[in-house]
């Protein structure tokens, strides 16, 4: 699978916000690639830059104050950053579909589902209204909306959260995109509904051979659907690995902290190991490693040197001074 050319290749992406209070380096140097048929997970705390990464790919960063200051986003080999708005528009919704976090607010409340689907299809395909409608029905069937004919003319508020998320997915899939970006698609949903949606994602991936970027803060979700994972912290990648490897041999203190701080349903209960401190404020990041103030293994040098992302193992990258020299894992 390594031989496949990547569908999307993000190189050294820097997206900054220039606000009155100072520059917010929301995304500050990340690299990753997604191959067709692969699911890449991006996890991290709130504000770590996950959504901004996704928005950068689609060229939807509000500007001003936001700006992609450096890097490249190569989609099927072409740099999206060089494209004009009009060309981007042809990629958005057609080549790259996007599903957002909150299904309650992501659909326009004043238009019917039909209108919102048809307009997407017609924006990209040379379809008649009738054809677009048929396609919409097909899609609603695909994402498992019962009685799609009747539901097509309903307004978003007439659907439950899970249904709305299915509709969002249907819209994202409308033009058979080769890449689907899902920004916390299940966070706002109940577990039983979340399970349904995750199941849908797995099915889609199997059936449609897309690349998927799954953004989440839930390691459980990552473990269930992702092939590879990038852990982000304060706008930078902390660790990048194949999913199984990450859970078994996670290395970055933040990754480890994250894993240890979530309660698990295991026969014996043990005390949670919390990560101290608060998530960083991107306005005034400390010099050196941004995780240093909360890190259990902080060293003198951590406060001064911002480490690079290093490959510590096959396809396993970590950005931590602890691993600068050796490839030894730190015992947890």
């Amino acid at each position, binding site marked *: 699978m390594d031989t496949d050319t990547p569908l999307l290749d993000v190189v050294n992406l820097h997206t900054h916000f220039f606000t009155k209070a100072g520059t917010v380096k929301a995304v500050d140097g990340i690299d990753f690639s997604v191959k067709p048929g692969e699911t890449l997970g991006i996890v991290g705390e709130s504000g770590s830059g996950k959504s901004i990464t996704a928005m950068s790919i689609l060229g939807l960063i509000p500007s001003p104050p936001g700006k992609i200051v450096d890097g490249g986003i190569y989609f099927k080999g072409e740099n999206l950053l060089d494209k004009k708005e009009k060309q981007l528009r042809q990629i958005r919704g057609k080549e790259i579909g996007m599903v957002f976090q909150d299904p309650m607010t992501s659909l326009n409340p004043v238009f019917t589902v039909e209108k919102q689907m048809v307009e997407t299809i017609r924006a990209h395909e040379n379809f008649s209204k009738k054809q677009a409608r048929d396609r919409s029905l097909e899609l609603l069937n695909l994402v498992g909306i019962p009685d799609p004919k009747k539901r097509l003319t309903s307004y978003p508020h007439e659907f439950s959260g899970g249904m709305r998320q299915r509709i969002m997915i249907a819209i994202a899939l409308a033009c058979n995109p080769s890449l689907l970006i899902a920004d916390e698609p299940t966070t706002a949903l109940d577990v039983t509904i979340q399970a349904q949606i995750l199941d849908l994602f797995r099915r889609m991936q199997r059936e449609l051979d897309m690349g998927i970027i799954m953004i989440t803060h839930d390691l459980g979700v990552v473990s269930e659907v992702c092939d590879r994972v990038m852990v982000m912290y304060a706008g930078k990648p902390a660790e990048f690995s194949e999913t199984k490897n990450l859970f078994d041999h996670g290395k970055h203190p933040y990754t480890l902290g994250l894993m240890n701080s979530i309660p698990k349903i295991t026969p014996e209960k043990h005390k949670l190991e919390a990560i101290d401190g608060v998530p960083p404020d991107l306005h*005034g990041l400390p010099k050196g490693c941004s995780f240093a103030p909360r890190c259990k293994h902080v060293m003198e040098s951590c406060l001064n040197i911002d480490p690079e992302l290093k490959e510590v193992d096959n396809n396993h990258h970590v950005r931590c001074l602890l691993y600068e020299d050796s490839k030894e894992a730190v015992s947890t």
Partner: protein
Amino acid sequence: MSLQPDSTPDTDTGTFNNQEHPKTNNLFKESFLRILKSKTSVIGLCIIIILLLTALLAPLIATHSPTDQSIVNRYQPPSVDHWLGTDELGRDIFSRIVFGTRISIQIGVIAVGISMIVGVTLGSIAGYFGRWIDMIIMRVIDIMLAFPSVLLAIALVTILGPSLRNAMIAVGIVGVPQFARLVRSSVLSVKETEYIEASKAIGARNLRTLFGHILPNCLAPIIVQMTLGIGTAILDAAGLSFLGLGAQPPTPEWGAMLSDGRAALQNAPWVVAFPGVAIFLFVLGFNLFGDGLRDALDPKLKD
């Protein structure tokens, strides 16, 4: 390993990230600082301060007495002696406008004061206690709102007799529904918040909850409405004076000045123009400031 960050006293709480304004822990103080950041509201504030100073120092600023007449010198165009010209009785318009500032401030404050006191009382009672009290109060407010406000004010002044005081009362009464509705809706929304539930949970009584928790949190919109309301009150009162139902001569009330000068619009437009400009500036000042205040106090805009 030197664990520098650990040496801070509150390890458990994490580093406290508040370098931005370390000393400003009061919401109002902070809002004030935020106001100063907005150009328009600073302009508004400047206008208001200038107006207040003008009112305070009117005798020093005015070049003439505001009531001294000189019938031969009526309708003089602006000149070195009379900066803004003279009116139908040869009084100095500049000086009258300067002294008129006092009247306008008085109108604004008193009229809005009336609207606010009555409106806040009605609105908070309706919002907090709900049910039939709310029903009755809001129906009365609806009835008042169904009345065109200008007509209501005119009717009130005609009943009370035309005078500045009565015009202020009328304008104040006309402004009540706005306050009542505003306060009611903020009380309703604050009432639903968890900290109000918390205050119930810790055993606070109704009055404590209303005055200690709910009303202080409705203050922002009330203050904004007051600022903007002063502008509206001035406009309404000037309108009444324009119709001859407000300030009585020789009070240099701007609306009345404008109305008196109207007969000479063709020959002496300055008599009409300048009081109008004064009203406009006054209202503009409060609108600019009120706008800035609204933005500054709006929790949504807080980062």
